């Protein structure tokens, strides 16, 4: 499944997708990515199955193909149908205080999974990773981890079923034992092949992958899953994280664990267009959760790449190019009402609706979302963060 370095280098001229870099000439080709990585497409029949098993409509991200790829999601569903539960694992690399909508996407989806399947969740804050890759001090990365935890909590996770941990706090004990077991199964050449490390990279980087792999195994959390070595793990993440988990899946059977299953999302496009993912370092490439209604309106109006024609006459004649229009894409993520989205796509594509109207609707929706998030975030106290991050049993985690 893994190509060796020279093949990767050739592909790199076209598009680069790995945990630390996402770029392409033009649009990201997701078909090629699925093929290259070797994961599966999420087809409509799986989505229907999810709806049936959970007794509720599938999340908007499933319906719209935002989460579009998976590994072994079938098996999770098969086991679930037999009455075997699973746990969720997702995470965040706390590299900046400013969280944008793209960051929230996996968390919004994970919350839906937690509610729909009624399963526990562990959230890893990789403060150590950011300390190493972004050259932050230990204290700063720990501080950012706590700050980001507040935004994550504001997404609405159930405290009685969720354990948030930061690597600097939690690594040790059973977790570390698993890290070592994993590390023993992966050769240096292998990590170089998967992650592209060079002789110049410090050893911290080289030895990091097991840290992100360990939460895939239930024995890493003895306070939660003692006696449940057979518990499966489902990892919602963006597709650039796939390399970590390909490595983990390789290792799992050798350690006697189930391979973790994955459910993967597209990248949230930047405001200026679909050539990469949103970057926390460019404030106008994204809508932040701290943006005011005014900021949002401004950013959408000024920076959101429009697929509309350059004049009203041309627009009415030719319609908008929905392939590249960012506002319509964003609506695809956040406008819940399928019928309304369809209507907008039809009218805008035919030129009967103007860009301004589409942008206005988007601004409405995003403002509401951001305000709801802000309110929730304001309710998160330091004590609440401590409680989420405390190493404690979760007796009701499957209720």
């Amino acid at each position, binding site marked *: 499944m893994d190509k060796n370095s020279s093949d990767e280098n050739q592909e790199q001229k076209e598009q680069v997708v790995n945990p630390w870099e996402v770029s392409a000439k033009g649009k990201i080709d997701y078909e090629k990515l699925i093929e290259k990585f070797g994961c599966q497409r999420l087809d409509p029949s799986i989505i229907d199955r999810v709806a049936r098993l959970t007794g509720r409509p599938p999340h908007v991200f499933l319906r719209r193909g935002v989460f579009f790829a998976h590994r072994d999601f079938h098996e999770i569903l098969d086991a679930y149908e037999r009455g075997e539960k699973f746990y969720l694992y997702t995470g965040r690399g706390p590299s900046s205080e400013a969280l944008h909508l793209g960051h929230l996407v996996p968390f919004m989806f994970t919350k839906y999974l937690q509610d729909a399947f009624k399963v526990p969740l562990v959230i890893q804050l990789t403060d150590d990773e950011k300390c190493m890759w972004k050259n932050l001090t230990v204290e700063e990365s720990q501080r950012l981890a706590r700050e980001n935890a507040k935004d994550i*909590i504001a997404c*609405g*996770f*159930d*405290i*009685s079923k969720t354990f948030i941990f930061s690597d600097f706090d939690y690594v040790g004990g059973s977790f570390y034992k698993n890290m070592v077991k994993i590390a023993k199964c992966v050769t240096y050449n292998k990590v170089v092949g998967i992650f592209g490390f060079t002789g110049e990279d410090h050893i911290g980087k080289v030895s990091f992958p097991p840290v992100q792999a360990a939460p895939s195994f239930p024995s890493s959390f003895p306070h939660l899953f003692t006696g449940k070595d057979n518990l499966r793990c489902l990892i919602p993440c963006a597709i650039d994280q796939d390399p970590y988990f390909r490595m983990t899946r390789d290792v799992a059977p050798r350690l006697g664990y189930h391979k973790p299953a994955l459910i993967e999302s597209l990248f949230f496009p930047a405001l200026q267009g679909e050539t990469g993912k949103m970057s926390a370092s460019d404030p106008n490439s994204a809508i932040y959760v701290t943006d005011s*209604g*005014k900021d949002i309106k401004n950013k959408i109006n000024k920076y959101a790449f429009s697929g509309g024609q350059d004049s009203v006459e041309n627009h009415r004649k030719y319609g908008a190019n929905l392939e590249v229009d960012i506002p319509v894409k964003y609506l695809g993520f956040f406008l*819940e*009402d399928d019928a*309304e989205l369809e209507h907008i796509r039809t009218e805008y594509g035919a030129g009967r609706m103007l860009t301004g109207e589409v942008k206005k609707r988007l601004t*409405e*929706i995003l403002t*509401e979302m951001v*305000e*709801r998030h802000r*309110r*929730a975030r*304001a*309710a998160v*106290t330091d*004590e*609440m963060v*401590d*409680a989420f991050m*405390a190493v*404690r049993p979760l007796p009701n985690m499957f209720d």
Partner: protein
Amino acid sequence: MGYAKEQLLARLQELQIDFAQYEHPVVLTVEAQAKYVGHMKGALSKNLFLKDKKHRFYIVSALADMKVDLKVLSQRLGLGKGGLRMAPEEALGEILKVPLGCVTPFALVNDSARHVCLLLDQGFKSQECCFFHPLSNDMSVAINFRDLDKFLNSIGKTPAYVDLEANPPVGKDQPPDLAGLVPSDAVVLPDPSEKIASSQGLEKNHISVNNKPTATAAKAVKPSNASQKERSDSAVNLSSSFGDPEKLVEEILEKTTSIVLSEVKEENMEKYQEQLGTMVSNSIRKQLSLELKSILSMFKNTSYTEGFYAGTHRQPKRM
């Protein structure tokens, strides 16, 4: 008598609405107001209190230099060519509870003004902020339209912005474009006992102000989710604490009753008849499910945290 300026300002602060206030000698006209705040950041507004032949009242709030053609407006509202007149002076005091020269969107906070239709100049949206009187002529408040909307939503009013320059033809095939904004009931002037009740405390007034059908058919055209959520979102700012069951229940009841009251109106009663109950229930579910889940999750997390904190700080039993 009605809401006082101080009560209004306090309410704005409670809602965490941004505004600037400027005191000045009493002014009765826009020109006079301009002398004191004309140089400040913000656009002046002119506010007309109007009445139609069926004793329904309207506030038209526009940028000061906007030409408001009452004949055109009257036609667009479906009132015919000469349907709109300036309201008599007594109505100012009785309905809006403000003195002469003080017509302002804020007056809608009074229960007596619950049937008044507010038309806002679309031009406000492109201004950084606009000036309005806060229920008295010795002060001007500068506020951005979004914050004004927040306030209006909090008192159960859906803001209606209108292009006051437009003069669309009205005829057999072109129905009056603003007809949906006309209040569906004739106004009943409040009797003295109601007047006393309406000035008793913020909370109570807030509840009674919601007891009016918001008869904006325009709302039905917009996806109702957005406008309802907008309204409930701003009311939500009243309770910032998630550990208080009383406050949360109040908030939930308020959101639910406001939907019930806005859906139970004549046109829906005719349309749905016995199914009205089902329709309202579905409306409530659709509009509130997400919001309520969010509120209750936060409540649960807050409670758990309080318990957790208490547990981890527990003193060992003294023997």
